């Protein structure tokens, strides 16, 4: 199969390798038409198909069989066919379904964003903001769990979990003996370790990065500061166990936490080891590459301005600039 498959997503045609999922084909186009994904993680094998936020409408199955698919399909689990036509944001049916999915995901979510450390970089917050309804119709008690310590560095808030299974796949695929998984079924299912076993693997800290919500959080960063007051910086170090490419989150001179570098879909570029994540929190441990670029839609970049120069639409007044030369030089130094 060397031929490329032509697939049209929201009216934009792209030629992709046959056998990849609709979601990945959409990511090759990029932009607004990429379906959101809460459980799919391109670096984790077998992930996806759990959260249903990536539902899309297939209005034409393929060139050979042009019938539309009868139901909305999960784009992370459906492979592309040649001549397939997919509707994502152009279909009102998909938007309506996604609204319902967000409501269902939020049914048992405690909505304690003012307390949660993930707030500001939370996938569920973004999803709810972009695709969800403003209110909830749920009137009953939300399920609650006690907080669980997974080791001394990771804390699990099962109350916030949306059961995406990403952390289970991470533990399964990055570490050699998994000690945590999902217990119970259906409504009662929860992420847990057997008798709160301690995870001691070198890469166990990555469950924090893959968690799309604030269910798994860094205990060393717990309540230290809000993410939007910290300054992200790209840095690397010569690490014997991992690639050592991380993002440091500074507050003043202090490194508050170390995470992997997340791309635009919230997926880390490289998994980092626990030594990098928890034990090296000094500037002298790292080689700093420069400030990390944060999308201007994110709350983390609010009140930060890339440039002090006025926008190009504002015409420059040469006489005024000459008169205020000293002032302009002073702003440049800052």
């Amino acid at each position, binding site marked *: 199969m060397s031929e490329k498959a032509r697939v049209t997503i929201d009216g934009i045609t792209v030629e992709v390798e046959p056998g990849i999922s609709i979601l990945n084909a959409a990511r090759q186009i990029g932009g607004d038409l990429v379906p959101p994904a809460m459980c799919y993680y391109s670096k984790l094998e077998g992930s996806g198909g759990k959260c249903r936020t990536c539902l899309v409408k297939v209005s034409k199955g393929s060139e050979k069989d042009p019938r539309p698919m009868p139901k909305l399909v999960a784009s992370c689990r459906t492979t592309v066919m040649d001549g397939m036509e997919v509707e994502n944001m152009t279909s009102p049916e998909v938007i309506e379904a996604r609204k319902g999915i967000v409501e269902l995901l939020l049914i048992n979510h405690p909505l*304690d*964003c*003012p*307390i949660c450390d993930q*707030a500001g970089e939370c996938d569920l917050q973004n999803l709810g903001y972009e695709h969800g309804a403003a209110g909830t119709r749920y009137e009953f008690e939300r399920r609650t769990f006690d907080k669980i310590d997974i080791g001394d560095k990771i804390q699990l808030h099962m109350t916030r979990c949306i059961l995406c299974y990403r952390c289970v796949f991470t533990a399964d695929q990055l570490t050699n003996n998994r000690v945590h998984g999902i217990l119970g079924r259906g409504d009662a299912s929860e992420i847990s370790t057997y008798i709160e076993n301690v995870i001691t693997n070198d890469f166990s800290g990555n469950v924090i990065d893959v968690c799309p919500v604030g269910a798994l959080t860094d205990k060393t960063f*717990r*309540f*230290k*500061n*809000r993410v*939007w*007051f910290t300054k992200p910086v790209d840095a690397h170090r010569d690490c014997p166990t991992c690639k050592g490419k991380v993002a440091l989150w500074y507050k003043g001179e202090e490194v508050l936490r170390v995470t992997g570098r997340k791309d635009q879909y919230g997926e880390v570029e490289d998994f980092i080891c626990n030594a990098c994540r928890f034990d090296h929190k000094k500037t002298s441990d790292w080689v700093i590459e420069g400030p990390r670029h944060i999308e201007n839609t994110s*709350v983390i970049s*609010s*009140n930060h301005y890339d440039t002090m120069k006025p926008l190009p639409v504002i015409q420059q007044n040469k006489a005024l600039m000459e008169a205020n030369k000293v002032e302009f030089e002073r702003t440049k130094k800052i």
Partner: protein
Amino acid sequence: MESLTNKKKVLQQKPMNFWERLYLPAIFQGMAITFMHMFKKKETIFYPEVKREFSENWRGLHSLKRDEEGRERCTACGLCALACPAEAITMIAAERKKEEAHLYREEKYASVYEINMLRCIFCGLCEEACPKEAIYLDGNIVESNYLRQDFIYGKDKLVEAPFKAS
């Protein structure tokens, strides 16, 4: 040039007559107005003993509120500090211990909460940003002081006094 609107009045200086040159009638007229004001209602008040009534949407000194059980509502989420256009608000969060459950409403609370009253412009954006209804600008005018550092109000000045059991 001819005026466009014809609204302009051209003044002509006439020479003063005898009574005007005396100046006395004008002086007495002025004194009469001054004396008349002694019997009119005064517009000024003796602040701080007497205070004017604030309007309903008055925004004054901040207060951090407590809930029905007297626990502090603030969870140090940082949204007020983010919304603040003058960057007047700073805070440090802390985790609530088990025995402090009667003091703070949520598991996180602000151990330090400071507002620099010299920076604050009393715009009320913190009040709007607060998800927990913890901060309101319902106080008085900020008191004057001699030192700049005394204008940084901490939790001792901002948090409401606890309810007294009646």
